[in-house]
């Protein structure tokens, strides 16, 4: 019996064309567009500094430092640069630790919740509560129990970043087709086999979406945590706050930009990781993130 792939060739070519278009698209959507976006952003920033602040709001222009001043004062001077980079290192450490805990705990919770509707229903309210709780209101409690240092920062990080991981993982685990479940039912697959060979792989695209969102939030969590829990090492949030108190605006913006860059970096890392793992087979993963 011989079968030629003739009937197939058309759609195969179409897939390859698409892939080629995608590769070509990187020139525009991957490089040119972001550069234009960045230029617009910097342009608006200058506009605020040189014109809008005074003309529209009647406020002094130093409140929003000009971008080149930020670069000169923050990054080209050795002392603030050292200070900020060290802070950034600490914040990164807290953010990634918190994110790691969120990932392990969040995925575990989602897997438990995926086992039965009653489990799902029992856990949901508390997760939404964790999402909605005003951190500021429970700061004294956290501080009293866990101290005003490292552990409390990490806890804030986890509270802020765990929700998207649980919700996306759970959504993903429950997204496997009924007909795909049938395949496993047909061969009497155990709960564990079903989880490992069907539900988790099916959930991967959603899981990576959750990781990406949580990664951004974990940086926010780390910086916010530093603002409240100031004992111990000086993260970028503390450094930034000290500049602000001393009205060193260029340095404040310098630190702000760095902490944003950290958020963008972890966000993009998980986008890249997701694409590397899932992109080969998933229909709608885009390279950009």
């Amino acid at each position, binding site marked *: *019996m*011989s*079968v*030629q*792939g003739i*009937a*197939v060739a*058309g*759609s*195969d070519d179409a*897939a390859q064309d698409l892939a080629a278009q995608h590769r070509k698209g990187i020139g525009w959507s991957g490089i040119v567009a972001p550069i234009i976006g960045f230029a617009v952003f910097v342009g608006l920033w200058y506009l605020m500094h040189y014109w809008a602040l005074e003309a529209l709001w009647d406020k002094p222009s130093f409140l929003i430092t000009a971008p080149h001043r930020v670069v000169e004062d923050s990054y080209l001077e050795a002392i603030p640069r050292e200070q900020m980079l060290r802070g950034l290192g600490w914040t990164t450490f807290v953010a990634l630790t918190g994110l790691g805990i969120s990932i392990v705990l969040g995925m575990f919770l989602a897997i438990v919740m995926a086992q039965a509707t009653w489990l799902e229903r029992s856990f949901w309210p508390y997760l939404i509560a964790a999402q909605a709780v005003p951190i500021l209101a429970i700061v004294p409690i956290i501080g009293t129990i866990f101290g005003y240092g490292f552990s409390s920062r990490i806890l804030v990080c986890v509270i802020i970043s765990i929700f998207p991981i649980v919700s996306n993982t759970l959504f993903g685990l429950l997204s496997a*087709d009924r*007909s*795909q479940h*049938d*395949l*496993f*039912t*047909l*061969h*009497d*697959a155990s709960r564990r*086999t079903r989880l490992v*060979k*069907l539900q988790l*792989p*099916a959930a*991967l695209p959603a899981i990576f979406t959750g990781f990406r969102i949580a990664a951004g939030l974990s940086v926010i969590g780390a910086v916010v945590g530093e603002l409240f829990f100031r004992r111990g090492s000086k993260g970028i949030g503390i450094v930034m706050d000290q500049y602000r108190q001393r009205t060193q605006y260029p340095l404040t913006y310098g630190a702000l930009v760095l902490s944003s860059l950290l958020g963008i970096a972890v966000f993009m890392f998980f986008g890249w990781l997701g694409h590397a793992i*899932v992109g*080969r*087979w*998933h*229909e709608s993963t885009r390279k950009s993130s």
Partner: protein
Amino acid sequence: MSDVSTPPSGESLREQIEAARDPKPRNMVLVFNGVSMTFPDGTHALDTTDFAVNSGEFVTVVGPSGCGKSTLLRIASGLTPPTTGNVVVDRSSLGYVFQDATLLQWRTVRRNVELFAELEGIPKAERTRRAAESIDLVGLTGSENKYPKQLSGGMRMRASLARSLVLEPNVFLFDEPFGAVDEITRERLNDELISLFQRLGFGALFITHSISEAIFLSTRVLVMSARPGRLVASFDVPFAYPRPPELRFDPAFAELAGQVSHALRGAHA
């Protein structure tokens, strides 16, 4: 194993004698004993049904949409337990090809084809060998490392077929497998399915709403009425295998198609 419509003991004795004489024993690989199905919401999907599929027999059920044909297969496979009656089938060597290819999109063709063997606990070396064989049988050699999204509809159905072939099934269930592919691909897949059937000699229960496809493939065509599904007529198809594509334009083919069509319309009325 026995069919309820005939005296059980006599049938099985005759079977044994025949099996002893016949160089190609016609043992039943799938038996429906008084099976009926009423869903919890009260939908009466399947009226009491008795029939059997022998090995080396290709039985096709034709019927209008929504008459419970798919329910018949779900019951045959054990996915849905029937309300009354029982089904006799060896589930460990059961092939099942669904309406959609239902491939796991994160697995390559090779790994998809290995899935059932994996779930049945067939050792890795044996699994790999059988998967390569099945892939070759359906003509997908060279595409082993492609992902489902890179395959055409026809190739996906072939992969889905190969996934069941790995189990070397005695009985094969097909749930309108070629409904979603174009006419030309469908005819070619029919040819390929027949040659597989001839080579491997499994018993097949095939569901379709195409009369022409039913006759072209089968040794026997069963006609099912509209809901609640009931088998209302049975036609033996006399044409010898292999069946050339031109058979579809043979007067005898057309006459049989007319009879099946008539029975179908009768079932509707």
